[in-house]
């Protein structure tokens, strides 16, 4: 079953990203975009048309791209380094660690089409390891917005923030969930719905599926709390502990491997501060079969019905103690 109820109202978050970047770029001449031949896939055509000199295309060379980003920041510019997340993180992880995070370079890394957004192109183009790779690197903020509102807010926040940021975006359409005018706060989850039976936590393309699952649960008389947790690092410890204490169990879902991502980050907090039963939904540690992102999310139990079913099983575990 598909989570989407009204496809006409779905938004590609890349549009909110570039619209915000172009607006900020008009105000701040220090903003430059850096890419690896990904002008089209990063939707940087408008930025290039407006600020042709400020689009630095290094060609198909991701290690150089990230290093160049660090150097541009050293020279006083504010680079947004854009590329498909699979290549940006996988190919240049050491540059992200040494040149950006360890050097504290004021660079914004923007992983485009993360998760399984490239769908049928297969696991080489999927980026279902990037939370795990990036969130263990000190001094790097890791953020996966859930809709176009949060994407715009996160880009605006990143431009104003002094320090390294990894922004993980999809291209898969999602409905707007957060209210217009929403302001992004690093490390602060948003309660989208309150309940006491279970907490559902997600980010990126999974948040709206969690809300839909909560509606299905409510129809069965089960009230779920839903948290949108865009920031994977630094993780919102207070929100997780409060959720554990209020609802007694936590279910997470992400367009990422079940190993090392959002669910793992939450589990680390739960184990340390408030042990309660948990279930982590995600890509089950395999190279996935052919299919679109939406198909694969459903396939791995992350349709709203799948999430609702997993939530009921988790609640039963909680009751068994």
């Amino acid at each position, binding site marked *: 079953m598909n989570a989407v109820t009204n496809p006409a109202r779905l938004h590609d978050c890349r549009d909110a990203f570039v619209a915000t970047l172009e607006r900020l770029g008009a105000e701040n001449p220090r903003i430059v975009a850096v890419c690896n031949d990904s002008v089209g896939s990063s939707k940087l055509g408008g930025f290039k048309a407006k600020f042709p000199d400020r689009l630095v295309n290094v060609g198909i060379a991701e290690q150089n791209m990230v*290093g160049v980003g660090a*150097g541009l920041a050293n020279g006083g510019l504010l680079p947004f380094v854009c590329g498909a997340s699979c290549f940006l993180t996988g190919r240049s992880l050491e*540059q992200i660690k040494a040149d950006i995070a360890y050097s504290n370079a004021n660079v914004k890394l923007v992983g485009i089409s993360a998760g399984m957004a490239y769908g049928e192109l297969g696991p080489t183009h999927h980026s279902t390891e990037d939370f795990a790779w990036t969130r263990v690197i000190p001094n790097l903020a890791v953020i996966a917005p859930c809709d176009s509102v949060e994407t715009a807010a996160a880009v605006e926040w990143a431009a104003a923030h002094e320090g390294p940021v990894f922004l993980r975006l999809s291209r898969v359409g999602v409905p707007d969930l957060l209210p217009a005018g929403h302001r992004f706060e690093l490390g602060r989850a948003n309660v989208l719905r309150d309940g006491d039976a279970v907490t559902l936590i997600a980010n990126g393309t999974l948040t709206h599926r969690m809300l839909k699952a909560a509606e299905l649960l409510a129809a069965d008389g089960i009230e779920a709390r839903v948290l949108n947790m865009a920031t994977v690092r630094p993780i919102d410890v207070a929100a997780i502990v409060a959720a554990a204490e209020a609802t007694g169990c936590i279910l997470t879902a992400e367009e990422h491997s079940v190993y090392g991502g959002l669910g793992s980050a939450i589990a680390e907090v739960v184990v340390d501060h408030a042990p309660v039963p948990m279930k982590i939904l995600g890509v089950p540690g395999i190279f996935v079969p052919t299919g679109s992102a939406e198909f694969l999310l459903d396939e791995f139990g992350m349709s709203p019905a799948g999430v609702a079913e997993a939530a009921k099983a988790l609640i039963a575990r909680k009751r068994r103690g």
Partner: protein
Amino acid sequence: MQPNDLERIARQIRLRDLQAVVEAGAGHIGGEMSAIDILTALYFRVLRVWPDQPKHPERDRFVLSKGHVALALYVTLAKRGFLPEAEISTFLKPHSRLNGHPNCTKVPGVETNTGPLGHGLPVAVGMAKAAKLTGASYHTYVMTGDGEMQEGSNWEAISSAAQFGLNNLTLVIDHNRFQQGAALKDTNNLAPFPPKLAAFGWDVTEINGNAMDEIVPALEKRGARPHCIVAHTNKGHGISFMQDTVDWHHKVPNAEQYRIALAELSEAI
């Protein structure tokens, strides 16, 4: 500052470097000795830098891509006034900011963190590109090892520097002919470097990288394209028994070797 003065300073830096390696019981002395003449020329003659304002926007940039010779950079920076000279004695000690690879968040004068090889040149390309975009007048220098040029990221950067027309960028390859485990020629022989850089659209100058009267004019050369200096150097330069032996990549002199090395360097001063 005249070549003779620079040579004297280089010998003093070699001496302090040697002492610090022995005190710390570790270091990369061979590659430090090969690079020190170039570092001296940069910091005492060529670079426009202000030690009391290490983040001055118009400062010339220098990136030590072969970050494992950090000690040579620390000694040079200290002698130039970026940090207290007495602090060199903390090299590799617990909680010292002078660890085995330079850290720009802690050590004034260090521009970017290096250590893994093949990182400095892409960052330097970004620095030079930034100057082109902002109209800043600073020049960017980067030093790599010759073995380090085996990293593919360097060639990505070399290609993009030519594409961007970065005539405000100078790459110095410390061509001491040895890498950690063996001679360059017995490992993955990229030499000769000049035709390769020229093929990518760079100007190339070959010099004796341990001769001050060749180093300074090469560093000061300006042209229409990015500039590569292939600096033919000797690993362990200045200490007779270390020269051109692969063993001295990161070996530490014993008491007798230290006595001989001290005598050779002191005699030269």
